[in-house]
Structure formats: structure tokens, C-alpha cells
């Protein structure tokens, strides 16, 4: 665990612009893809956790890393296309299998080597999150990657993933620290997201008062971008969950109902969490039928986020069993174990 004791703050301080050797402009080009998936060709000349510089025929353009969805490299092997397709479909196992067939040392391009190594570590982390196996290894691998590659443009994604891994392992203290690194990002919505994640980790440690404080800070933030607003909504859900735990279930219910009324149900992540929180409120106020309905909303409609779905399944198993619908409980259990066997929610069911 020595590696984990490394301070992320120090890492950041020493991380800086890293110069890379790259191929001449006339070779196959790198491409930076923005949020609209529009590629911009050029050569990546500089890269940090916050920015990437791309040399184009018209000059150097600098992108903030939060604008970038992915970077492809001119000299990357053909397999990378398939890897990226699998990643797009969240088919991490297939992607990992292809990545393992590639030799990162076979390239001269440092950026490409980093890309391959990161994607491998990332796939392992994502798989471990769901399946539950080898989480510690995945965490160490990812952490080690960033030790040597602090300026990699997916730093903040990595920090969040590390936090998620730590949470999945029950080490919420460590998770808070990883999320704090995410919070060092220069963009307000990232900070907000980090705060929300930290608050969730605090709540997972039953530090509800502290978590609620964080949530309220997010809610009160004046930032009004779409992502900021989204984080505020997630923080609202989190706050309601804390209120419920503190015995103020009716107040929590009101908050959640208002949230559902005033938001688009297409946001599966938000609604999934909101309905889980509603379920928890009804459980606390001993209304099992209503609780069942909320969790069923998640299972049948808002199951996109693995952890959220697993949580709902966990409660559904108990509720169905209480209602003497053991066949349905069995069905839920089978799904939970099959799809989220590694989740904390699958323990002891």
C-alpha cells in the first residue's frame, strides 16, 4: 500500500508540461475528438492533465482536457480502432483482450505507449468494479500508471476511477482523497463533481453531517453550466439521502419528489439515484410497498449506472422476500450476482 500513501497533491505539483518526441506532420496524423465527436487532425505536441496542444497546419491549438473525449494517434496499430469501438460499447473485457495483445514498448511514441497502458489499467479497473475481482491490483496498476505519467490528459478521469475503486473496496477514506484530486481540476463543474463524489464517500462512512455540508455547498454554488446544474441535482439527491439518514425522511421525500418533477427522466443516472433515495426514505418510514415501487423504477427503467442498479436489486431482494414473492427475489438475486457480483450490494444476499 506504500504507493497509495503517495500524496496526490505532490504529484500534481511535480506534474507539468511534458515534452514528447512526435512524428513529422506529414506522417499519419493524430486526432483530437471533441464533445461533439468532431475530430481535429494535427500532432499532439504537449499534454498535461489540464491541457493538450495540437499542432495544426494553421497553428497550435490548445484544448482543455475537459473538451476532449478521445485522442487517436497517427501511428497507432489497427487494433486500437477495435479497442475504441469496444470501449464505446463499454465492452471492457473485449477491449482489454485486444490491448493485451499490443506491446506498448514497440512504439517510439510516448503518448501512444501511455494511451495503451492507461487504457489497459482503465479496463481492468472498470471490470474490477463490476465483477469484484482483483480490485486491489487494478487500483495499484492505475495508481502506478499515474505515478509515472502525471501529465496524462485523462488524469481526472483516472482520479475519479481510483476513487470509485477505493469506494468499491470499502476504503472510503482513500476514496475521498482520490476525489479530492479530481477537485483540483480548474473547471467548476469538475470541482462540483468531485465534491459530490467526496460527499458520497463521506456518506458511505456514515458521516452524514459532513456529507450534507458538502452537498449543500455544491447546491449553493453559483455556477450554472449544464454539467454544474446536473451535479447540483445529484447533490440534491445526496442531501436528501443524508436528511433521511438523519431522521428527516419527510423533508427528504419532498426534496426528491420536487427533483423528479422538475427534471428530465432521460437522465438515467440522476433518476436512478433519486429513486433509490426515495426507496430508502420509504424503508425508513416503514412503507415497504412504496419502497418497492421506487426500487423497481431503478431496476426497470434507470439501471444504467451499475452501482445504482446493484443497490436497487439488493433492496428488491429483501422486499420481495418480505412480501413472500420468493420467485421474484430469486430472479433479482440472480441478476445481482451475475451482473454485479463484485459490488458491495451483492455481499450477503
Amino acid at each position: 500500500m506504500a504507493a497509495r500513501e503517495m500524496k496526490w497533491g505532490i504529484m500534481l505539483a511535480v506534474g507539468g508540461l511534458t515534452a514528447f518526441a512526435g512524428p513529422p506532420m506529414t506522417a499519419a496524423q493524430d486526432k483530437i475528438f471533441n464533445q461533439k465527436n468532431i475530430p481535429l487532425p494535427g500532432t499532439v505536441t504537449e499534454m498535461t492533465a489540464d491541457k493538450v496542444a495540437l499542432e495544426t497546419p494553421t497553428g497550435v491549438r490548445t484544448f482543455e482536457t475537459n473538451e476532449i473525449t478521445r485522442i487517436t494517434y497517427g501511428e497507432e496499430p489497427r487494433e486500437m480502432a477495435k479497442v475504441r469501438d469496444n470501449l464505446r460499447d463499454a465492452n471492457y473485457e473485449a477491449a482489454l483482450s485486444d490491448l493485451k495483445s499490443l506491446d506498448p514498448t514497440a512504439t517510439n511514441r510516448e503518448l501512444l505507449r501511455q494511451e495503451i497502458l492507461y487504457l489497459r489499467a482503465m479496463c481492468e479497473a472498470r471490470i474490477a468494479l463490476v465483477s469484484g475481482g482483483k480490485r486491489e491490483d487494478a487500483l495499484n496498476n492505475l495508481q502506478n500508471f499515474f505515478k509515472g505519467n502525471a501529465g496524462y490528459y485523462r488524469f481526472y478521469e483516472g482520479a475519479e476511477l481510483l476513487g470509485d475503486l477505493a469506494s468499491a473496496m470499502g476504503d472510503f477514506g482513500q476514496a475521498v482523497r482520490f476525489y479530492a484530486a479530481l477537485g483540483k481540476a480548474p473547471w467548476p463543474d469538475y470541482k462540483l463533481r468531485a465534491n459530490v463524489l467526496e460527499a458520497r464517500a463521506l456518506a458511505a462512512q456514515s458521516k452524514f453531517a459532513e456529507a450534507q455540508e458538502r452537498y449543500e455547498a455544491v447546491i449553493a454554488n453559483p455556477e450554472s453550466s449544464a454539467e454544474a446544474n446536473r451535479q447540483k441535482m445529484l447533490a440534491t439527491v445526496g442531501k436528501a439521502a443524508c436528511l433521511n439518514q438523519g431522521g428527516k425522511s419527510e423533508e427528504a421525500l419532498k426534496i426528491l419528489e420536487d427533483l423528479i418533477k422538475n427534471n428530465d427522466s432521460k437522465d438515467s443516472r440522476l433518476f436512478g439515484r433519486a429513486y433509490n433515495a426515495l426507496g430508502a426514505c420509504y424503508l425508513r418510514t416503514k412503507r415497504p410497498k412504496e419502497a418497492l415501487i421506487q426500487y423497481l423504477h431503478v431496476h426497470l427503467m434507470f439501471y444504467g449506472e451499475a452501482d445504482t442498479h446493484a443497490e436497487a436489486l439488493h433492496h428488491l431482494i429483501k422486499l420481495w422476500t418480505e412480501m413472500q414473492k420468493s420467485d421474484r427475489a430469486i430472479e433479482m438475486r440472480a441478476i445481482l450476482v451475475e451482473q454485479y457480483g463484485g459490488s458491495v450490494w451483492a455481499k450477503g444476499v
Partner: protein
Amino acid sequence: MKARSWRYAVTGWLVLLTQTAWSEEPAAEFLEKLREAGYFDTAVEYLELIQDSPLVGTGFKEVLPYERAVTILRQAHSIRDFAVREKLLDSAYTALRQFQAERSDHPLLMDARRESANVVVERARIKIERSKKPSEAANKALLLGDALKLFEEAQKLFAEQQSELKVRLESIPKVLDRTRDAKLVETQTQLRSSYLQAMFLSAAVREEAAQAVEAGSEQYKQFLNEAKQQYEAMFKNYRTRIAGLKARLGQGRCEQRLGNFKEALSYYLELMDNPEDNETMFELKVEATLGACQCWMDASQAKYAAVIEKSRVVVEKAPPHKARDEMVLKLRLLLVEAAKKYVEELKMKNAKDPQVNLLLADARKYAQFVAKINGELQKPAQKLLGELGGGGSVAAVAKKKYRTFDEAKTAAMEAYDETKAPKLTMDALTEQIKETPDAAERKEMEKQIAEAKTAYEDGLNETVRVVKNALGLADKETAPDDLNNLRNLYCFLLYNQGQYYSAATIGEFVARRYPDASAARTCAKIAMASYLKIYQETKAESKPLIDRFLELLDKDNDGRISQEEFAAASDEIKTQWADADVNQDKKIDAGEIVRALTRFESDHIVDICNYITLKWPDQPEAQESLGTLISFMITEGQLAKAETYLDKIPADSPQRGSAELRIGQAQWSAYVRGMQAIREQEEAAIKAGQDRATLENQFRAQREELKVVKNRAEKTLEDGVKRMEQTGKIDTTLASALLALAQVWIDTNQAPRAVGLVEHPQYGLLKLVVDEHEAVQKRGFREDTFKVALRSYISSLAAKDSDAKSLIQKANDIMARLKQSIGGSAEGQKTLVAVYISLARELEQQIRLATDESRSGLIQGFKTFLDQVGAGSNELNVLYWVASTYASMADSNPQAKDAVEHNKRAAETYQLILDKGKRNELSLDAAMRNQIAIQLARSKRAAGDFDSAMNLLKDLLTANQGLVPVQMEAARTYQDWAEKDPKKYVTAGDGNFPDPKTRGKIVWGWGGLANKVAGKQGFHNQFYEARYNYSVCQYRYALTQTDIAERTKLLSKARQSLRQTVDLYPNLQGDGTPNQRDFTRDYDSLLKSIQKQLKEPETGLAGLKKEPPAAKAGTPKASAAAAGGPAPSGNPKSGALPGGAKGLPGSSGGSP
């Protein structure tokens, strides 16, 4: 979950129409998801919950009843159980009607109305499906009648819709601008669609109604012709639309069913040749082809080649996702059948026609395809396969190895079907053999029964093997319902094989894990039946075990294990039976031991019964379970619990009546036992010196509680009998309950009602007994019936306006029947006397239990009867009974004014018997004569005629001094006499009438009697009673002394003699021999009374233990052995006690 196809499909358009804005919860979508997942019950609950939810908009809330109805309709499709389906449809219908009533202007209104009509049609379909079941053969006509009515109702609904839609369509302008009038165009389109649907459905209902009447009948033809006309009209107006084409198809079906194949074929072929090619048309063409092929298959057509050709085209062209549609599968089978028949035709022309093998190969292929698909067509397909030479016999099928669950399951069902024939044979022959007198024939039948039994058992074993095979092949794809149906069969088989534990395990597994499965209830029932069997087996097996336990632990041989005895048990038994003493009487009886040993079984029975009643409260199984629970609780002695279960059985349930009767009887028994216990306690208390008034108060609360029990018993029995009356069924339960109810009415001063039960023309107790009905064959039932009848007549004499003459005549008849029933043998006579004595006791009890106001009337009634009976009879039994009854009446309340009178009457009757005996008018043996003489003396004593009593007794004792009962009676007589003449206390103690021959006395007195029987086996009670009364006489005599010193002296002697008895013969409780009375309380109470008079501490017997033993006058050696040890036997003088020769002070030794 498999969706059942039906013509009147529910459409899922609702999601579109009610799509919500994102300011609300996505209720419609969520609801649809719940339905798709099969969570219909949760969907219904959701609809209830969101009524007040702020997250759901008013638009959706308005349609909640509609949504509920649609949900329930969808649920009904997924259920195979008829009863549950019908209930769901009823519920859906109510919800739809509610919606229509509340939302008459809603856009969904027409859809709701259409669905309402569809519900009605679906209900009619269920009736028709049920009518086809063999188990419903008796109800077939009723079911079809109901189906017809429902079709009529649906037709009416569709017709109404049609009219309304027509009006609304006509109100819309014919020419509309698509842009400007967009909304109106949309409305018009929707209305047109609804109109067509209504028109079509109206015709379809008419067509379907023909299924509810006899095929070929006038009504049948009328329905089809009407439907045909409606279809024709529709086709004419809409021939280019799908609706019109469907109508054409309907025409074809109607013609086909009317037997007009030519016309039917013309329509079918027209459709088959339609050039359009989309999925809807494909389905239409398939159905048309099927209809055409069916027409060609008819014997009048026999165009098998056409069938093969046309059906093959459709089957081969079917898209993959349509290949397993029901219609396409049917077409395949029709092709197979046609191929078979065509092959026969070809063979007749040319046996070696090459087409034959090709056709058969093809047919086999088609049959195999269908045979692998689970469903209604699987079995026919397999049969055809067999006929084609590809299936093999059932046995061969059964022995095969299976690769899929479906195959194995089918084979299991077939194997089970094979067992039915030998079972039927077995049952039929078993009945037949009872009426076959010829030995040779019987032998042959026994042989056949044995063979059938072997075949049956082998069949069951084979079925079990295949079932297990099938269960092992089940995987994630296997439909849960199919799997559970197979488990149901398995469970049933195991039960039939007597493997009750296994049957219970599987049955409960399915019932609890899959409560909504169609097999769940049956499985639960089998589990319950299995546990009952296990319970019965364990109970039967426990008897030797109980005997052993009692032998080991029951030291006093009273049939129960006391706390002290239990302390000597092993730790294992103590643990096992820790809670065995259910009735908390500090003793464990055999019944409680059985309960302890069968705890596992009884817990499971209660558990599964409770589960069934909770899970399926409205189903017959729930009521059957409650009935089982009630019987069980009664057996277990938990009457209160049994009563709570009774309340859960609906009043109109067939189980209710018999449950009431059982509980009523149990309640009455509890009442009688309770009153008996109070009486025993009262008698003991009176003997100990307590006064009646105190006792009245002491037991008042208990009596009140028992009165409540009695009233409940009466009501429960009455309700139960009324219910059973309605069923017309007479069984042992009813007969026993009638007896119990009659007893209740007799004992509650409603004797005339009891007479009604006794004399009821249909199920009267006397009628049942006279007719030797099977319900009254239980041993002793006849005698009990006559007793109840007698009591009811006698008790009715007390009622106002009673016809005494008639009642007495009836009572006499009963007594004659009793005599006839029990027989004229010497043994029979004794039995009859015993019956009369028990009757007398019951009358005595009845008088005691009677209220003050009714008692005198009751007694008067009895007396009237007794007088009549006694006067008119020359029979020993009758006279004896009369005398005993008078004596019982006197004993029931010795303090009553007429007690003396009763004793006199008793005495007179006894005397009459003796006199008649002397005159040889009655046959009296010596034993009987003595018995009667004792009774006579007793009655005289009770009447205060001591002289006469003593003379009688002396005569008896002169003949034989050794008659201990007579000696006791004589002593008792002197003792009672002493209340008037205190000196008789001395005589009672010391005896009278010196006998020069023996140098003793003819009447021994208590002292002499005690000495005579001291230490003798079998005289424990007599000995201790004698010694007790000896001391009582001393005590009471002392109290009559006015001189204090004399009194003190006598009291001291009384104490001394008591003490000596206890010291020399300390075994007051008995030594464990049966029937030995415990005299401890009596001695203790007397001693305390003496101590009180002597102004000593009233320590009683406990105080005696601390004192040194009493002076042993005349008992030099025996005392050491006797003190603390068993009574010495064989030598009466070894423990000689004060009294006897020396006597009490004042004793003259001669007669008083």
C-alpha cells in the same frame, strides 16, 4: 411468461396517448414495464399508490381505472387457473365500467367500452373451456348456458358501440382540410377504426356464440347465419381494407361450420390468392389455408392432395419468427394427416408407389417439428409420429433417454396416463368382489386385482423415473409454470407411493416459492395431506412407546405422569417433554405425550394450513385447510384456537357446517368436563367440612365461564346442524353433533327441542338408529341415542303444556327398545341395569345443573314418569332403575325438602323388588338381592327410618357377617342415627349385636371393621374409611359432652386413635394400587378440627410427623415395622388398634 393469443387483443397504444411531459414521473412507461415483467399485482398496487402522488399528473390519474382494468386483463391472460382467471376478469370489468361512468367524455372511452365487451367474451370463453373438462360434465349445460348469455351481452355492447360511433362519425363533416382540421381528421380516423372494430367484433361474437349451443342445432345454424350476414355486409363496404378481408375469412368459417364447404372454399381460396404480402396478410392467408384444408379433409371432400399442396406452400414460406405460430403448426399437422390418408389412397392403387415413402418422410418431418414444441399440439403430434412409425409405444418412449425437458415431460405425462387404466380396474374389481359370492370367480378377480395393482405400481415407478429425468433436464429457458406442473405431478406420485416426507418437501417448495403458479395450490394441498399422514403414522407408532414410558415413569399407575414422577425421567425425556403439560394440570397424560412426540408433524400441519388460508383466502383450499386445522386443534385440546379458525370459514362454505359441529361437540365436552371437575372439588370440600354457601361463591366465576362455553357450544352446534341440514348429507359428524346438541338442549331446559332432534323425520336420531344408517354404527351410539331420547321425553314432562301421557308412552317405547337392543341374556340384563344407572346419574347431574326455577319442574316431571313406569312394570331392570333414579334425585340435593320423599319412594321401590323376588315374581340371585337390600337400607337411612334400615342390615349380616359393604352401611346408619341419639356414635364405633358363636358382634362397627380388614389386600379404602369414621364418631361424641373434662378426654382419645392409625398405617395415599383413595386430606382436616377443640395448634398431620410416635397399646412389635412402611398384611391383630373389644367410653357392648 407465455402470452396467450386471443382474437380480441389488447393494444398497447396507451403509452402513446398518455405520454407525459417530463414534469412528471414517467408513470405510463413504468406501468408498461411492470406489465412486461409480469408484475401485474405490483402494477395494480402502483396504480393505487399513485392516486395521491404529486409526481403523477392529473391526465394519467384520470385513466387509472382503465389502466387497472388493462393490467388485470393482461394478468388474466397469463393465468391458467379458471377460477382465478374469472375473478380477474370480473375485477377488470368492474374497473372498466367505473372508468366509463366517471369519464364519459374521455378519448379512451370507446376503448374502455370495447375492452368491457372483450372481458365479457373472455368470460364466455372460460365457460366453454370449462364445459369441455370431464370434471365439469355435470355442469356442462349450465356453463354453456352462461356462456351464451355472456355472448349475448357482449353482442349488445358491441352493437351499442357501433351505433354510437356511427352517430359521432356522421356528425363530422365529410370533407376536411388535413392541415386546418388536423385534430378532427385524427378523431375521424380513430372513430372509423373503432367503428370497424366494433362491427367486426359484433359478428365475431355471434360466430363464437355458436360454440355454446349444440352443433347442428337450429340455434347453432341461426347464429352462424347471422354472423355470416354481418361479415358479408362488412366485406361489401370495406373489401379493400384488412377489416373487410377478415370479415371474408369470417364468412368462410361460418360456411365451413355450417357444412357448406363449397361456399367456404370459395372464400378461402379468394383470400389465399390475394397478392398482398405483409405480415397481417400472411396471418390471414394462413388462417384461410387452414380453413380450406379442413374443408378438404372432410370425408365429403377427401381432397388430400390439395391439402398437402396448399399447406406445404404456406409452411415452407413462413418467416422464421412465424414458424411456431399456432396456426402454422396446425397446418403442419393437417398436412401430416392428409399425407397419411393420401398414402393409403395411393397404396390402394399401387402398393409400391414411390410417392408413398417420400410423403411419409415429409410427414414425419413435419410431425417431428411440432412434436418438439411445448403446447397443446405436442401430444397429437407425437401420436401422429407414432402412427407414422417414428414414435414408438408409450413404454418405449418412457424407457428412452431424453435430451430436452419438453420431451421428457411429455413422456412423463404419457407414462402417468398409462397408470390410470390399471387403477380403474383395481378400484372397480375391488368393489365388484364384495358382491361376488362365487369362490372361483372371487379367486379370479383377486388375481386380476393383484395384476392391476402390480401394473399400477410399476407404472407409478416408471412415471417417477421419467419425471426425475425431466426435472434434471430443466434449465434457465424452461418455463417456470411447466417445471412446477411437473413438480406437482412428482409430488402427487410420491404421495401415492406413500413417500410422504418427500411429497411434503416438494409440495411445500412449490407452494411457497411459486405461490402464483397454477400448481401452487395443489402442491400445498398435497403437502398438507402428507403431513397429516405422517402425523397419523407417528401417532400410531407412538402407542408402544407411550406404554413403555408409562411403565417406566407412572409409579402410581394412574395413567398420567406427575411432576414427581417426571423428575425421575432421563434428561433427554425431560428436554423433549418440557412443555408437554399443555393443560397445566401438573400431570402429563397419554394425549399430551402424543402431542410431544408429534410436535414436528403438528407444527408443520398448522404452518401449511395457515399458509394456504393466508395465500388463497378465497379459494376452496383455504376452507378445507381451516377445516383440517380445526379438527387438529380439537384433537390437541386447543379449543380456543379451533374457534378462531372457525370464524375464518365463510358462512356459505361447504366446510363450515361440519367444522361447527366438531367444535360444538368439543365445546360441550369441555363444558361437561369442567362442571364435573367443579362437582368433584365441591364434594371434596364438603367432606372436608366447608359449607355449601362458601363453595357457591368460590366456584361462581368458574361456573360463569363454563356457562359461556355452554352457550357457545349450543350456538355452534345449532348453526352447524342448520347448515348440514341444507346439504342433506348425513354422516357420523352430523349424527354425533345431533346427539351432543340434544344433550345440550336437555341440560339447558329446552327438552322439547331435543325431542325435535330425536324425532326429526329425515335425520332424527331415532330414525337413524332404526334404519341402521351407516352414520350411527359407532359402538354405543344406539344406547346413547335411547338414553338421550329417554331423557328428552322425561325432561319434557317439566315443560308447560306438555302432553304427559304421550311423552310417557314414548319413554316407555324407548325403554322397550333399549331392552330389545341390549338383549335378553343375563349379561344383557346387567348391561341394561348399568345403562339405567348411568341414566339415573345423568338425570341427577341434570337436576343439579338445572336452575332453581326449572329444577322443581324437572323433578316433578321425573317423578311423574318414574311413578308411571314403576307402577306399570314387572321387570327388575325397570324397577331397579326407578328406585335408583329416586335415590339419585335425593342425593342430588340432600338438603332439599323433597329429598326425604324421594328416599322414601326409592325405599318403597327397592322393597317392592325384594318382595317380588321373595314371591318369585322376579328373578333375583343372591348378589342382586343383597345389592338391593343395601340400597333399600340406604334409602331408609337417608329417609331417617334408621330402625328399619338396621333391621334389614342385621338380617343380612346375620346370614353373612363378612359382607363388608353391608358392615359399612350398618356403621354408617348408626352414625347418621347418632345425630338424633348421640350414643349411637359409640355403637357406630364399636358395633352391636353380640354373636355368641364368634364372640364378636354381628355388626362390627367402624372399629371392628377396621381391625378385620387391616392390612388386607384390596381393602385399603375400607380400612382407612373405617378408621376415619371411628375417629369422627369419637370426635362428634365428645362434642356432645357438656362436661368439659369429659369432652377433653374424649377429644384426646379421638386424637390418639387418629394418630395411631397414621403411625401404624401411614400409607394414607395408597401404595400405587389402582383405585386406592387418598385419605390424607380427610385425616388432616379431622385432626385439625380436634386440635382446634383442644385449643392446640392446628398443625394437622404435618405436626404429627414432628412428634414422637403414639403409645402403642396392644401393638408391641408391629408398630416398628409399620411405622413409615407399608401396611402389614395377613395378620389383622398385628396392628390392633383402640376400639373393638375395649370400645369407646359408654359402650355397653350390646345393642343400643
